[in-house]
């Protein structure tokens, strides 16, 4: 059963087509990785799925309902959450407060004016539950500004999970991490799939092939291959694409 999907998605900036008739789906219980060379349009595709960017054409579906015209916040409420490539946590807040802020977005208490935010025990409890899950319990009380890079990625994921999403869109969550750190985060992402569908944009092929159930390859905005990791690994076009990419990098 497909949870989030798109059909015929198109987007162009001026004359540059960045999303070209894209059809993609991610189902509950799976980690679906989206790969492709730099500039293939992965982040742009993600932005259209999450609602930050209006597509020029095509439809985005969630559980069979057309959500193409829902704004970003309304899509979060409908069950689509995302994390960012560049960590964008709230530096002036503590780690726990960051998660509480994310929880508060969907618990409808945000128009309470006079009760101290810290006094909502249910929310505080759920925040520590989420921090536990991503392995940040020890850091709960410190200022988010003081987190190490890898920890900010973990916090990002805890915040994205706060809305109990049906679908989680992760934009290069392992970028800039040390290999063993990245491996631990990949395990975490794997474990999330029991609760939610995960669409993962990632560069690191080792992680993609070990963590993903399904892999789709984007090139110049269009889908050129999709299937299980073994099939993609063997796909001649994908091999050619990545070889070409390597040779360009050597110039």
């Amino acid at each position, binding site marked *: 059963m497909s949870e989030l999907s798109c059909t015929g998605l198109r987007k162009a900036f001026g004359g540059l087509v960045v999303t070209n008739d894209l059809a993609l789906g991610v189902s509950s219980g799976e980690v679906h990785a989206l790969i492709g060379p*730099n500039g293939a349009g992965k982040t742009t595709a993600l932005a259209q799925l999450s609602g930050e960017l209006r597509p020029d054409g095509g439809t985005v579906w969630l559980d069979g309902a057309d959500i193409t015209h829902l704004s970003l916040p309304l899509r979060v409420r409908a069950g689509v959450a995302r994390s960012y490539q560049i960590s964008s946590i709230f530096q002036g807040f503590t780690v726990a407060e960051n998660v509480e*802020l994310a929880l508060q977005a969907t618990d409808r208490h945000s128009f309470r004016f*006079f009760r101290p935010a810290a006094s909502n025990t249910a929310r505080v409890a759920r925040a520590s539950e989420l921090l536990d899950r991503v392995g940040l319990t020890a850091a709960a009380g410190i200022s988010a500004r003081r987190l190490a890079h890898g920890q900010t990625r973990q916090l990002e994921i805890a915040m994205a999970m706060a809305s109990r999403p049906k679908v989680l869109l992760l934009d290069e969550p392992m970028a800039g991490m040390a290999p063993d750190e990245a491996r631990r985060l990949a395990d975490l992402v794997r474990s999330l799939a029991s609760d939610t569908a995960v669409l993962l944009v990632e560069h690191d092929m080792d992680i993609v092939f070990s963590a993903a159930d399904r892999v789709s390859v984007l090139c110049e905005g269009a889908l050129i291959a999709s299937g299980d990791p073994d099939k993609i690994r063997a796909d001649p076009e994908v091999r050619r694409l990545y070889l070409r990419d390597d040779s360009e990098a050597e110039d």
Partner: protein
Amino acid sequence: MAEPAAAETRSRRSRSERDRSERDRFEVFGDRSASRWPLVLTAVVMAALAAAPVWVEATDRGYLVTVLTRVVIFGLAAMSLDLVVGYGGMVSLGHAAFFGAGAYTAGALTFHSLDGSALLGIPGTDQALITWPAAAVIGGLLGVVIGGLSLRTRGVYFIMATLAFNQMVYFLFNALEIYGGDDGVGLFAAGRSIGPFDASDDLVFFYVCFAVLTVSVVLLNLVVRSPFGRVVRGCRDNQARMAALGYQTYRYRLAAFALSASITSLAGAMAVTESQFLSPTYAEWSESGELLLMVIIGGLGSLIGGIIGAAALFLLEEFSIDVTDNWQFFVGLGLLAVVLGAPRGLTGALLGRERRNV
């Protein structure tokens, strides 16, 4: 040609760097885990302000009581502007419109009660228990309209739009010939009725205003620590991220703007009751700049900073006007020094926070 994804990343990175520098400046007090010192400072300032009239009376400088009353009134407006600028990250250069709206609401009601005529079918009154709340309501509504339109824009645009609306309101008051046009009108025959009391005595009136200020200080400190206050701070730090968490950010920012407008308008009504003179100068654009100046001199994102800034400005005026008519020149010089040298204002200096990295 740069690849779009790379360009995207670059632009987002530079934006986030800018965000960071803006964020740091707004965090005078840091996060929740921060110390109790801000609240201690608030209590000390309020206690000093409460004692000040007694002290000036005791030292035979009773004429300073009205200056202190103005500190309270303008401090209230500056503090509510801090909610928008310091906590909400919305640089409003149009708050004098709300101050003026409050002044004209209370002033017009008082004018018609003296005149015996009706205002749009409503009889006038000089009862502050009616005129002040009426001003708060009108100011809040005007805040919804001006904020609702201006918040459709961002950054520099928002600053320009609020300033433009300020000027619009100012010209509107200038055109109200019935209240003396640009000359304004005196309301000296009216008393300062507050419930059953007559607060014509300056000392009594000071404590009435001080009571309003105290209630507002408590309420606003609760608001910035509430779930709502957290959302407003979050929108200041990273609006896009708040949207990605599921917040419809426009609503929260507008609510904060309207609340601030309402309190500023209340302060405007108090100012008219204090001076018993109604004129468009309350709504002059330079007044918006001066409110912002008080906030910044006192310390952004601290609430109490607005009151400290108002005190600093009025005391400077009081003591320098004998020396030179052009004391505002030196206010400008001082403001430049604060902006270039101590961006966290007096509060930041008092609490010993490190300077912002620029």
